[in-house]
């Protein structure tokens, strides 16, 4: 059994000591500690959270984003969830991101697992992560237009089907040279010539 989980007061104190000048806002909500950090400082804060042994947030649990549309000054909010396994404590970091330059520094140099999470946020919200080695769409396909989890993307939004991609997936059966389709001549029944009935004519 690990040591008792660290209290929020203690964690809050250590945080304000180590990276207090970066923290714009700190709130306690339903037993969780949530700090707000500006996009320019997020690298430094994440670095401190991971490398400082007093904080020891060794696991990046999650990265996601929220689209606030017109409700806030900065449209987007990137949300990091950190976990310290030795201290048994969690931390939520929120980063307001503007619509004009939706860009945050990537955390891939600190946690390899950030790669997939950041690709998802880019795919769903169109927020770029500078320094990410391979920022491609992940759940949607490359030809998809827009970012589906933005609030201005319609729920029932439909996009045209895309053509088959690349020569290796081309259906080569379509290019097969085939002889002309066999024509089936209408069957002429013997009784037809003699004026019989009940035979289908084509």
């Amino acid at each position, binding site marked *: *059994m*690990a040591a008792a*989980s660290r209290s929020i007061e203690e964690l809050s104190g250590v945080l304000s000591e180590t990276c207090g000048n970066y923290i714009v806002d700190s709130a306690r*909500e*339903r*037993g*969780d500690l*949530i700090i707000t950090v500006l996009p320019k400082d997020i690298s430094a804060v994440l670095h401190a959270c991971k490398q400082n042994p007093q904080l020891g947030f*060794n*696991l*990046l*649990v*999650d990265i*996601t984003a*929220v*689209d606030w549309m017109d409700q806030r000054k900065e449209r987007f909010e990137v*949300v990091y*969830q950190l976990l310290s*396994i030795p201290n*048994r404590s*969690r931390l*939520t970091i929120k980063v307001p991101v503007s619509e004009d330059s939706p860009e945050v520094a990537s955390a891939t140099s600190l*946690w*390899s*697992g*950030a*790669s*997939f*999470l950041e690709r*998802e946020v880019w795919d*769903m919200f169109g927020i770029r992560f500078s320094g990410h080695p391979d920022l491609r*769409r*992940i*759940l*949607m*396909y490359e030809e998809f237009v827009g970012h*589906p*989890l933005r609030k201005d*993307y319609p*729920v029932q939004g439909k996009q045209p089907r895309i053509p088959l991609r690349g020569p*290796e997936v081309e259906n080569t059966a379509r290019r097969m040279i085939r002889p002309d389709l066999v024509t089936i001549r209408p069957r002429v029944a013997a009784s037809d010539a003699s004026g019989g009935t009940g035979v289908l004519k084509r």
Partner: protein
Amino acid sequence: MNQGKLLEVDFGIGGITTQARPREMGDDLHSESMIVNLGPAHPATHGTIRIVAEISGEKILDADVDVGYLHRGFEKMCETVDYNQVMPYTDRLNYVSPIINNFGWCLTIEKLLEIEAPKRAQYIRVILSEISRVCDHLTCLGASAMELGAFTVMLYMMEARELLWDLLEEVTGARLTVSFGRVGGVKEDLTEGFGARMAGAFKQVREHLVNCDRLLTRNRIFIERMCDIAILTAEEATSFSLTGPMLRGSGVNYDVRKAFPYSSYDEFDFEVPLGSKGDNYDRFLVRFHEMEQSLRICEQAIARLPEGPIIVDDPHIALVPKDEVYNSIDGMINHFELVMYGVKPPKGSVYNAVEGGNGELGYYVVSDGSGKPYRAHVRAPSFIHMGSMRKMLLGANISDLIPTFGMINMIGGECDR
């Protein structure tokens, strides 16, 4: 380094000694690499996933893991329905252990509402979650064993899963799409005589597990396909944000049930199995031993099952009993309000995690005070585990791809959402 240095090889034919140049990596007959595309529809990728592997001979030089073929827009859909209506969607996340998803969602909304389910509901949640977890592990291990040729094991494990699914069906009324969770409690109480039937089923499940253990754990073919493959050290595993059996296979002691106990998990005595090396075999062992621990938790919970209500007594959160709806004006109004407008949590955002079959299953929910979530996000363990797949595959043989993928236990619904 030894380029140009000739080896003396005695072929033993009439004492003739010939000389051969040592082969460097890539200095083979076919020296250029080859691209192999696996999936998205492949019998061994249970789930739609595509892996584009660059191979040289049998060695994987690089691999691109392409997920998203089962993307249904779960998070977008959640924004259009009320909190209890999300429940059927969560069934379809990890569809091997849907009950854990249900309860994870319930617990998140309960945290948002700052309420707690009654004790009996918590115990029922624990029992059903742990049965689900065993089903999840049985599916994972059975399918992986089958892919390595141990078909009998798969059949035994499906048999065991069937026994457990019968229990779940008895309580929830469904096998797969259970929708059993409710914000504030559970849908129904356990059935009459459930404990006795559970004990009977567990006895048979244990027999099957003993058989599977005999067939698999010391099986030479199985060991050679699993041992020392796809090794992740503890540092690498935490760096890739792995959780659940993947992380514990690498020897990191982290289980949400122990670290942040929810639903009275702190009242049960169970152990967290840990691996030592972090290879596929460790992940197999961790899952195998977790099943026994889950059965133990179920037995403790059913023995100490408290009496009482199964859902909170708050007409703004849980539906009022039917006789009140039909016979009193208050009950009627409450019922109408809840059905039409749903549960209305106060403004705020919350992250809550439970221990799913594959790892930490977290929900991040933002409420704007209305009946529908403003934003709902799932931290799906499968998705994050797929991020570590490339690292595990580099340098491995192409034949190692399937057991590695099997031990990740990617569930398409959860991974792609």
